[in-house]
């Protein structure tokens, strides 16, 4: 049997009435945790939830050869059955509104309800990008206001608002860099990416047409400055660096790196996905960054994952601004906000744009939420949010580093996420087992096996959202799981035991998904 699927459960396996409990029930339900069958198992072909008139037997069949020849077997359910089915399923879901989401690198902050209220205001929610500009000046004003604060917080010169997510923002930044190099007829071909960068960075550089070369990390988990300097030259177009990096560490040599890259004629791209750790405290513009995307859905609390789309505006340095994408907004002296597109780009002195990243302006719903977050926090509030996020991560790290290996624990404070490894686990015990054990303890698992440079990595990001009481409960669960993993507790290999399903075969579920209903013979 496959090691990962200890229970042997697969779609279609009959559900035992007693799934492991000491007190079996006839229905298979555990109190109010209900076993939910598929719609096809619930419904019958005879039931219909809608009262349709009987077909007119005299009506002619106009479908000809397209007419259906046999029953397609759709299940019929009444309205209450349908409503209950989906509501029950929703109760089996996990969400940031239910509890801690410790996924490192993902920044699962609370989404303030004030943001939601603002985003639902009809003037923002019900506008169309092709509406006459004069009817949406307020919405344009919001985009312009958010752009202003993003520039202010990062100390940069301009911002492209339209990219729709982090990696899209990376591509936008790299296309700006390529356009700037091409404008000076410079044929640099290489982009340097440190090991501590996000995995999307090398993919972006390759997609933008560059050859990617690695720069090793030093023993302290940060970019090896000397190795980087040694590799710089007339063929290096840019360096893509993530700061704070994927090990949750601040790249202290950032300014020296930028100066060296600029001296060699290249540009500096900074992956700003972790900007939430330094927001209100460090301005990337002061560190010599030329382009950096900001994940509004991480740093500025807009919903993501299953909850909503991303948004990845890119702040740009003065040399890159002329090449930024259209459209963008501009506030005139009389206070009106204009939308700058191809036909009026000349008027606004924006003649070198590389083109567009999207058809329209960007993710309006994320803009309103992010601006609400920024304005409701104020500069002091944002500074405290980043400080609390870093404090929470360090509290976690120092509360666990006596029972779990912390690979860069000696490299000083971490930033917004705590990095742990499987070093010291008993033979056969893995990071995956600890993650599954966390489900039994009532927590969403942490990010695992990332960053790749750490064996059996566990990356935990509590964000500023979590209270000390929540963190203490999580720490207690992690300490217990660490002890079990080190002691080789076999029951951890088969966790979770209290979830509606035991350990599933995730690899086959993704590789060979069963997406259509298949009737299983009762056995």
């Amino acid at each position, binding site marked *: *049997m*496959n*090691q*990962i699927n200890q229970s042997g459960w697969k779609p279609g396996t009959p559900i035992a009435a007693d799934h492991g409990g000491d007190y079996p029930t006839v229905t298979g339900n555990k109190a109010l945790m209900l076993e939910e069958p598929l719609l096809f198992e619930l419904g019958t072909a005879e039931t219909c939830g809608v009262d349709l008139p009987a077909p007119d037997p005299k009506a002619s069949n106009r479908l000809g050869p397209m007419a259906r020849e046999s029953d397609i077997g759709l299940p019929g359910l009444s309205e209450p059955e349908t409503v209950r089915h989906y509501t029950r399923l929703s109760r089996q879901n996990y969400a940031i509104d239910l509890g801690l989401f410790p996924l490192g690198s993902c920044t699962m902050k609370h989404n303030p309800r004030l943001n939601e209220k603002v985003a639902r205001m009809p003037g923002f929610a019900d506008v169309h990008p092709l509406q006459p500009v004069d009817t949406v000046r307020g919405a344009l004003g919001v985009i312009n206001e958010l752009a202003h604060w993003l520039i202010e917080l990062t100390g940069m010169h301009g911002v492209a608002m339209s990219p729709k997510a982090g990696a899209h923002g990376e591509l936008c930044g790299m296309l700006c860099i390529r356009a700037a190099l091409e404008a000076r007829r410079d044929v640099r071909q290489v982009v340097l990416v440190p090991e501590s960068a996000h995995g999307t960075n090398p993919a972006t550089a390759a997609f933008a047409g560059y050859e990617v070369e690695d720069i090793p990390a030093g023993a302290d988990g940060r970019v090896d400055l000397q190795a980087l300097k040694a590799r710089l030259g007339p063929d290096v177009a840019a360096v893509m660096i993530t700061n704070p990096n994927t090990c949750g560490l601040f790249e202290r040599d950032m300014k020296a790196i930028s100066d060296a890259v600029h001296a060699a004629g290249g540009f500096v791209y900074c992956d700003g996905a972790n900007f939430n750790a330094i927001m209100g405290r460090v301005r990337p513009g002061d560190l010599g960054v030329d382009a950096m995307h900001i994940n509004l859905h991480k740093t500025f609390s807009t919903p993501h994952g299953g909850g909503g789309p991303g948004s990845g505006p890119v702040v740009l340095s003065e040399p890159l601004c002329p090449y930024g994408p259209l459209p963008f907004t501009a506030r005139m002296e009389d206070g009106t906000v204009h939308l700058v597109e191809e036909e009026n780009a000349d008027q606004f002195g924006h003649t070198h744009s590389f083109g567009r990243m999207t058809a329209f302006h960007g993710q309006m719903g994320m803009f309103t939420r992010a601006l609400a977050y920024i304005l409701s926090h104020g500069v002091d509030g944002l500074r405290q949010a980043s400080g609390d996020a870093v404090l929470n991560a360090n509290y976690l790290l120092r509360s666990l580093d006596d029972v779990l290996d912390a690979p860069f624990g000696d490299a000083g404070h971490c930033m917004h996420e705590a990095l742990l490894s499987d070093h010291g686990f008993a033979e056969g015990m*893995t*990071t*995956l087992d600890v993650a599954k054990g966390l489900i039994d303890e009532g927590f969403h698992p942490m990010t*695992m096996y990332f960053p790749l440079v750490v*064996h059996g990595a566990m990356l935990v990001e509590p964000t500023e959202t979590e209270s000390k009481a929540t963190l203490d409960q999580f720490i207690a669960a992690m300490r217990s799981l660490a002890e079990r993993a080190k002691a080789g507790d076999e029951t951890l290999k088969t966790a979770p035991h209290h979830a509606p399903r035991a350990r599933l075969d995730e690899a086959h579920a993704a*590789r060979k998904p069963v997406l259509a209903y298949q009737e299983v013979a009762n056995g």
Partner: protein
Amino acid sequence: MPRYFTEEHEWIDVDGDSATIGITDYAQEQLGDVVFVETPQAGTQLAKGAEAGVVESVKAASDVYAPISGTVTEGNTALEDEPELVNSSPEEDGWFFKLTVADASELEGLMDEAAYETFCEGLD
């Protein structure tokens, strides 16, 4: 029976015009726990460098390439149910597929064990 190695971390055992191919111990160590393997079906014609299969670990999914051209005679079906064989026995029971060698001269560019060891040391 000579064993050859590629820079993509595959090993090839050649026995007459038949070759057995798998991934190296170094490769499985880098991948971590292997959870899924897809091997090519018998009869598949593979050109040198063509995608021959897939190996997925808890960390990453990677393609496996045909190090030489040939016709697949057998995929290791044991890996479907026990992908962990790639971790426990990468260079024996965890083999991926066998093929008939189309052009023995393609073996000339490959590394022997000593050269591969040196190659891996250079990567660390």
